[in-house]
């Protein structure tokens, strides 16, 4: 035949040419797609941004300092804040004076407070309490809020009841709940956790409910339903992946907000009895207006701000990275 081309003459190698492959039933069932691991992609996207690495390092540093440093120096909250109470020369010293008095050591790099205690040590111990409070409250509220919010969004009957509950509880001032708790029980760490979680979950649940309602009736979910997928499978496979980034983003605003709230409550005199950051700020408020003493006030304020900002940035960017739409190259 004239129009027959000899493939060999075109100079293609064998690999570039079609070759015959036998039909295989097992192979024809496979769908070929690039290998994709969700969480690996999340971290790939997250660490691609250099800012995130810096901020995450800072976060790890702060957490390590807050949890390890007080243990290493053996900080005892019942003894250490009052260790220099009787020494009238030790009070409200700036760093250089404190080092002059007590010798060079890490304890005095921020000077001393109103009862001669080390501002630096108190700051880290306070950070530990504040961070613990924030994480515990966030864990409780998020668990209850997300689970309940999902049910709330899915069931129309629950929705009708919960909306009423939400409208009512939403009007009770939160400081009222907290202060009544503080008056009923002694204002300890766990009372504070109870007070912050007793109605704290409802805002989260409402937020999740709204998100669930938005995607519940999307076409792909209706299609799934028509194809006979069970509700649980729809919830787990269709809706949960969509919600992951929403939940992480929410967590990013929740955790710092508990620290801020604790600081606020302590400042208005309704905080817990433990020496948290809020209480440190409350106690050193007078120092702020006294020239030369400002460092006592600003150190807990600054560390609280650093903790909240770092947590917020990490959370937000992790939330962005956990949105599968950002995983495409």
């Amino acid at each position, binding site marked *: 035949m004239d129009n027959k081309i000899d493939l060999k003459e075109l100079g293609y190698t064998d690999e570039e040419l079609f070759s015959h492959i036998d039909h295989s039933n097992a192979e024809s069932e496979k769908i070929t797609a690039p290998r994709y691991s969700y969480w690996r992609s999340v971290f790939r996207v997250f660490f691609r941004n250099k800012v995130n690495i810096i901020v995450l390092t800072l976060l790890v540093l702060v957490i390590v300092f807050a949890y390890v440093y007080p243990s290493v120096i053996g900080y005892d909250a019942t003894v250490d804040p009052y260790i220099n109470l009787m020494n009238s020369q030790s009070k409200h010293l700036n760093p250089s004076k404190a080092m002059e008095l007590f010798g060079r050591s890490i304890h005095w790099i921020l000077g001393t407070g109103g009862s001669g205690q080390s501002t630096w040590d108190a700051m880290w111990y306070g950070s530990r309490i504040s961070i613990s409070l924030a994480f515990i409250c966030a864990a409780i509220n998020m668990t209850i809020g997300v689970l309940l919010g999902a049910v709330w969004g899915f069931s129309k009957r629950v929705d009708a009841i919960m909306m009423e509950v939400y409208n009512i509880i939403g009007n009770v001032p939160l400081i009222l709940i907290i202060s*009544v708790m503080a*008056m009923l029980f002694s204002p300890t760490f766990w009372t504070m956790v109870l007070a912050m979680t007793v109605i704290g979950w409802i805002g989260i649940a409402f937020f999740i409910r709204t998100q669930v309602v938005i995607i519940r009736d999307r076409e792909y979910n209706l299609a799934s339903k028509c194809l006979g997928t069970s509700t649980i499978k729809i919830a787990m496979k269709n809706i949960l992946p969509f919600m992951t980034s929403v939940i992480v983003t929410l967590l990013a605003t929740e955790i710092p907000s508990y620290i801020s709230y604790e600081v606020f409550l302590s400042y208005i005199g309704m905080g817990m009895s433990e020496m948290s950051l809020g209480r440190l700020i409350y106690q050193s408020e007078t120092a702020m207006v006294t020239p030369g003493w400002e460092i006592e006030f600003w150190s807990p304020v600054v560390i609280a701000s650093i903790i909240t900002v770092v947590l917020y940035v990490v959370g937000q960017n992790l939330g962005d990275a956990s949105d599968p739409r950002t995983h495409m190259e």
Partner: protein
Amino acid sequence: MGKYVLKRLLHGAVSVIIVVIVVMVLIYSLMNRNLIFAQDPNYTHQSNNNRITYTYQKWEDYGYLDYVTYADYINQLQRSGEIDSATRDTVVSLGRKAENDSEETAEYVQRFTEYYESQGYTVQRLDVVMSGRRVANGGQQQLFAYRDIPVFKRALSYFVNLLFIDDIHYVSDDVDIGERGVTFTWFDPVYGGEKFSPAIIGNGTYHKYLLYCDSSFPYIHQNVASIRLGLSYSVNMGVDVFDTMSLSQGTYSYADITYPSGHMENSADDLHSATYMQGSRATSALLQDRFADDYTNVASVRSGHSKLGYSFIIGIISVIMAYVLGLPVGLAMALRKDKLLDKLGTIYIMFIIAVPSLAYIFMFKAVGGKVFGLPTLFDMDSAEKMMYILPIVSLALPSIANLMKWMRRYMIDQMNSDYVKFARAGGLSEGEIFTKHIWKNALIPIVHGIPGSVIFAMTGAIITERVYVVPGAGNLLTQAINKYDNGVIVGVTLFYAVLSVVSLILGDLLMATVDPRISFSTKER
């Protein structure tokens, strides 16, 4: 529409009532009732039995229980004609101990005990407390009965008494006060009876002036109906919560006034506020000199604004600032997405969200005071306008961040929506798309929040007012909680709950006016 609003209002009212009942149950049944005396100097000055009776009296005043003393009971018997005054005088004096009672007294004590125990009261007798051979200070013997008022009954009476309407039978009918009635005059006697100023004066009512005019906003004032949110105990003793929030504060402002008796004096008394106080004239020569009747209880004219007033001035200016600055900046950020302005704005928003509000308010205070030399403390008596700046800025900056955030979000959502792409494909210019479509749609959710931010400008901001020592309403709730003033807690909660319900409804209505697609009149479309 009207039907919808009515339904929403009723719904709101129910939720407000439930909130108040929840709060009442929390503080009246769970909280230790002895705590209300924590800040009361009178309590610490009482001793022995007097202190006990004082606590019961106060608990009765503040609605915890019904309390009757033996003397009240005997006086009541005398008034109803059951016993004559000679018997009264003998039986009213209790023995130092129960076994020391005279025979007649013992009989009436027995009757008192039986009567009140059958009514569900607890009768308590306190024997005399001696110090050496004399009765100790406040140690006189006491006999009284008390009965707890259940929280729900209490809540009911609270709501019933919420609105007080004055009438001419307010003063007890036993008291002779001349002819009861309401008179109208064109010439208010407060101004000497010559100046033209219409007023309605009541006799037998609680307020003397039911309607009057003066030179302060809103020029015509009424005292017929007043809101009573409950009595304050330690924050502002004996004064209603609503008055605590709405009466002016500060130093007295004196003026030459003519009292009803014709006496003239340079005084801060506000004669228009006169209320009835039974028998007050008979006991005080000072009052006899000035007043012609028992309407002697007057408030003072003060130079400052009320708590709500200060909060509102600061709040409303900061709200206006927030909308005027926040919306355009948010808009500009959306239009220049991922450019420098957007990045700076995002950092600012992040700063406000993440940093504790206390920290940045103190930062504004430090920067404002040191760098700009602005006054950092609020002084009610100074006419200085500069002291308003820092509180206003501290309140406005976070709301600016919030508005920027949402404005940017809504704008970007609208800009990416399909109808905008279609409009662009259809050949509309960018300007047209912006003014006719994006801008209007993005503003709808923003509009929803406007009534709320205006109304809540009134309630003040807790931290800001505390940091700058503003005498506003924001501190009232925390102050009440710190001082265990339960009346104020309930009153303020009710006030907040009503405001939040009203602002939500107003927000929805405003949104429906702005966006013709939203309609509340038809149920399903």
